[in-house]
């Protein structure tokens, strides 16, 4: 049945192409003012021009780097801390309520505090990204470690596994699906905060690029930047999905 799947996917790409054609039509017929909605042809031209002139590449890389480093830092801290808290029922009892309370807090609300402490700097943006991405990962990791099947703990006692072995061989693999889900959410947040951070702190990146393009009414450049941001989101999510499939091979549906 693999052939059928590929056929359907090709069909959906065709539908996507159809949407682009409609977009072109709407732009050409000036259904919406070209100031707001440039045609895909102009957006594409702006994209190509941006890379050819060497403008877009450093901005793209800047955003990706920020997002990645912030996310990486948040992952390391989040998983390590989450493991320590998640494994200990005592730690959970003391800390989980407070952490759960902080869950719905918009990560961007920390930006003014970060600005107050670190000014409008690169470090501020990185700190905000790391802080914002930390919470979903911390909470998901705690949940993953807390939800380890108790029977497996008994099995490890019966087998005489060392404490370290229990964490590494039993708790961590068991918590991995949750950890990866948290990482995925953290990545989404990291991208958003990277964009906002760039806008506010005027750091060189796609976020700033699209803001400036909007202010100077350069709609094609603006759309080119938005498309790139969508691509960054898409590719990074896909990489994470591939890693997830590799690590969680055993979850094949019966």
């Amino acid at each position, binding site marked *: 049945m693999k052939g059928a799947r590929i056929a359907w996917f090709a069909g959906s790409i065709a539908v996507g192409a159809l949407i682009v054609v409609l977009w072109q039509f709407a732009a050409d017929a000036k259904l919406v003012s070209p100031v707001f909605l440039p045609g895909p042809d102009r957006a594409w031209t702006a994209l190509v021009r941006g890379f050819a002139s060497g403008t877009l590449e450093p901005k793209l890389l800047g955003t990706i780097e920020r997002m990645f480093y912030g996310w990486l830092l948040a992952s390391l801290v989040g998983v390590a801390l989450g493991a320590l808290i998640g494994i200990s029922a005592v730690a959970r009892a003391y800390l989980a309520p407070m952490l759960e309370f902080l869950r719905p807090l918009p990560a961007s609300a920390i930006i003014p505090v970060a600005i107050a402490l670190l000014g409008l700097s690169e470090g501020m943006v990185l700190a905000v990204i790391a802080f914002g991405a930390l919470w979903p990962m911390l909470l998901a990791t705690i949940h993953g470690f807390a939800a380890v099947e108790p029977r497996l703990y008994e099995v490890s006692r019966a087998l005489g596994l060392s404490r370290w072995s229990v964490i590494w061989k039993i708790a961590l693999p068991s918590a991995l699906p949750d950890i990866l889900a948290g990482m995925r959410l953290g990545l989404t947040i990291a991208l958003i905060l990277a964009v906002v951070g760039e806008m506010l702190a005027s750091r060189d990146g796609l976020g700033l690029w699209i803001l400036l393009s*909007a202010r100077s009414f350069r709609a094609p450049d603006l759309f080119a930047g938005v498309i790139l941001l969508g691509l960054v989101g898409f590719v990074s999510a896909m990489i994470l999905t591939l890693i997830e499939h590799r690590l969680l091979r055993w979850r094949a549906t019966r």
Partner: protein
Amino acid sequence: MIRSGKWRGLVVPVALVVIAEIAARSTEITSDTLAAPSAIIVAGIKAMGDGTILAATGQTLATALGGLGLGLGIGLVFGILLGIFPIADRLMEFSVEAFRPIPSVALLPIAMLVFGFGYRMEISIVAFGTMWPILILTRSAVAGIEPRLLEVSRVLGLGLFARVTKIVLPAALPRIFVAFRLAAGVALIVAVTVEIAANPLGLGYAIMSAQQSLDPALMFALLVWIGLIGWGLNMLLVWAQSRLFGRAAIVEAAQ
């Protein structure tokens, strides 16, 4: 008494606040960036009293709810359609996966271009941000309906509209409500983020102004307030969920 039961969750936060208070009082430095918990509480009460916090809260909630409503409408309609018609779902797969990853804040400059500053710009971004989780989750809720029920609707010869309103919606409603809860959180987050980034209204703008006017007590008070709003909104919806759907829905939906 402290050692057992639900009070343990309060020990650490209370201890942190006490430590912060002691630290603030013992160092006599006046700071532009930090404030003592007591000062924060005072600033919060003052801002509450003169109506500024409430006005800002109203603005943020108005845009969040407005955007949520719009996103709910679009997401529900498309989610149900894609859930009911697998052919449509498969054909739209590429387009959905292409548009989904666009971060909602990336649309901020576009919205700014079209609407300028103000409510409409923020509502449109919130709508975009909430539309996707609702669409995705509604789609899987509808696709996951007990097939037996759909067979019943075929046997009874129900038209599309009747099928949706009498069978699909009620059956998928618990999971759709969970999606709604999630989207409400997203709505608040996106609204505050837009306000912090650019839009001069609401709580996000208020907290940025507090920082810029070097009023850390007010800034932290607003931070705590935003946290409370988020928490309160979530609690409200969890309560509503348990009233409407009972405990079973909460357990199942906690995944």
